[in-house]
């Protein structure tokens, strides 16, 4: 098994203006993603800062999920999908020959758009990741810890043996977050984690994300502009562009600190999008 141990460094003093994250977990350069012959995303350059929340926004079909799924090599599972360019994870090529995608996914967790608890008990949902990864330690404590971190413990502590599918949608999504936390990842990727939830459940998840960003690096895809503005440190704005052969490709338009993107974007298209004139 490959060793890609993160060397966690303390974040340095904030520079007055830093487009590039100072302490990058991921450094993406010239990333293009193909589904078969179709180039869905073209030439993305991006850095994901350690223990920051990075938001990816943009109109539907511009390739946000595609880029996100490159970070934990979930795209490997799609026949014909392939990434070109490079994604460095703590200086190591995520797509290098010696890298084991299973190990990548253990370190880089993912929460999906639609809550997808396993049809098992709440307890077994949380314990599943640690079990398949052969993690040692007291499982009960691990489960409690993960559920507590995901702000779900108080609601479910009396019914851990109950089927996870009996939980509400918002609870299920927090369960999925707890499940991801339980394997102690370094990064959590979230693909529109609140799109199926009501405003109250959404607020809970947003609070949770801020809480988690003390220990985890989070990348979130969202269609909710307020959400991106509220929770994220940096924002990447994607859009789809039509090339000379009139094929649509997802492009990264602008990547900057969230406050800057939402107050003083440097690209006209970003401005149009966040002010609702586009998309």
């Amino acid at each position, binding site marked *: 098994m490959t060793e890609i141990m993160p060397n966690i460094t303390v974040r340095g003093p904030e520079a007055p203006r830093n487009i590039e994250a100072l302490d990058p977990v991921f450094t993406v350069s010239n990333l293009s993603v193909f589904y078969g012959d179709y180039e869905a995303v073209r030439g993305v350059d991006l850095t994901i800062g350690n223990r920051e929340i990075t938001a990816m926004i943009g109109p539907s079909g511009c390739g946000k999920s595609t880029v996100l799924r490159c970070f*934990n090599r979930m795209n490997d599972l799609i026949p014909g999908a392939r990434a070109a360019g490079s994604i460095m994870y703590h200086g190591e090529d995520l797509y290098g020959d010696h890298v084991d995608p299973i190990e990548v*996914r253990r370190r880089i967790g993912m929460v999906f758009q639609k809550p997808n608890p*396993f049809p098992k008990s709440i307890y077994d949902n949380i314990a*599943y990741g640690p079990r398949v990864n052969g993690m040692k330690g007291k499982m009960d404590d691990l489960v409690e810890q993960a559920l507590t971190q995901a702000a779900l413990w108080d609601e479910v502590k009396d019914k851990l043996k109950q089927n996870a599918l009996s939980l509400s949608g918002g609870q299920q999504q927090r369960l999925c977050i707890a499940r991801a936390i339980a394997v102690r990842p370094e990064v959590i990727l979230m693909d529109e984690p609140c799109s199926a939830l009501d405003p109250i459940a959404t607020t809970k998840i947003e609070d949770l994300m801020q809480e988690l960003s003390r220990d985890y690096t989070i990348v979130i895809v969202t269609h909710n502009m307020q959400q991106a503005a509220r929770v994220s440190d940096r924002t990447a704005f994607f859009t789809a562009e039509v090339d000379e052969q009139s094929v649509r490709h997802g492009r990264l338009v602008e990547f900057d600190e969230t406050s800057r993107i939402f107050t003083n974007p440097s690209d006209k298209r970003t401005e149009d999008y966040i002010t609702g004139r586009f998309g």
Partner: protein
Amino acid sequence: MAILSTPASTVRLASQGRPLKEHLFRIALLASLAIAMIFLVVLLVYVVTQGWSRLDLNLIQNFPSLRAVNAATAGVLSGIMGTLWVVALTALMALPTGVLAAVYLEEYADKTKWYNRLIELNIANLAAVPSIVYGILGLGVISRGFGLGPSVITGAITLSLLVLPIVIIAAREAIKSVPPSIREGSLALGATQWQTIWRQVLPASVPGIATGSILALSRAIGEAAPFLLLGAATLVRFNPDGLDSSFSVLPVQIYNLITNSRPEVQVVGAAAIVVLLAILLLMNSVAIWLRNRYQKRW
């Protein structure tokens, strides 16, 4: 631009003749159902009345006999035991093989490759091959080719080949019905593909696999044709005691009894049919129970 509105006079809530059509359709549906049910009831009543006088314990405790003097006490014990042996062995061979084949086709096979599509197509075709053809295969290859003779194991292998395509198809359907989001959730946690299959996909598809397999096996239980070809004996006066033992199965004994010229012997055949139906009914109830008990909702 003027707002277009429907003049009130054209609005009609009253019946426009559609209910009659719907009525006719419902009647047609009910009639189809009734035809199926009536034949089933007629069959049951007929068989039970025919065999009534011999529906006793002797039937399942004694060995068969074609002699009229024994007609009051002869049974089909060796057929029942032979059927149980063959079906149990078939389940043992066909279920693991069928499930693993289905796992390969659903989870590993690259569906864009021509040879995988060819395999799929052929499995569907195999499921439609008449059972007598499997009998020929069993006779030619297993009984004579492998020299296993008309033994329990020959019967079980033949029956396994017969139900294998059905088991594969049922297992594939069950595996397919497990939502991809479950697999993604598992893989995203760092589980390997095999862990995902073993701990998520297979447990979630157990009800479907079990139901389909039981239905396939209950079809196999009623088969007489391949066994007639294999040369399963009819008047076996002992129970199978091993894989190489000669044997008989219920359908073959029934065929033999019913075609006998003496009415007293035919009665035993009718009673044996009731036994066979009871076994089938039991198996199907288990299938239904399993389905309801473990039904998954996502």
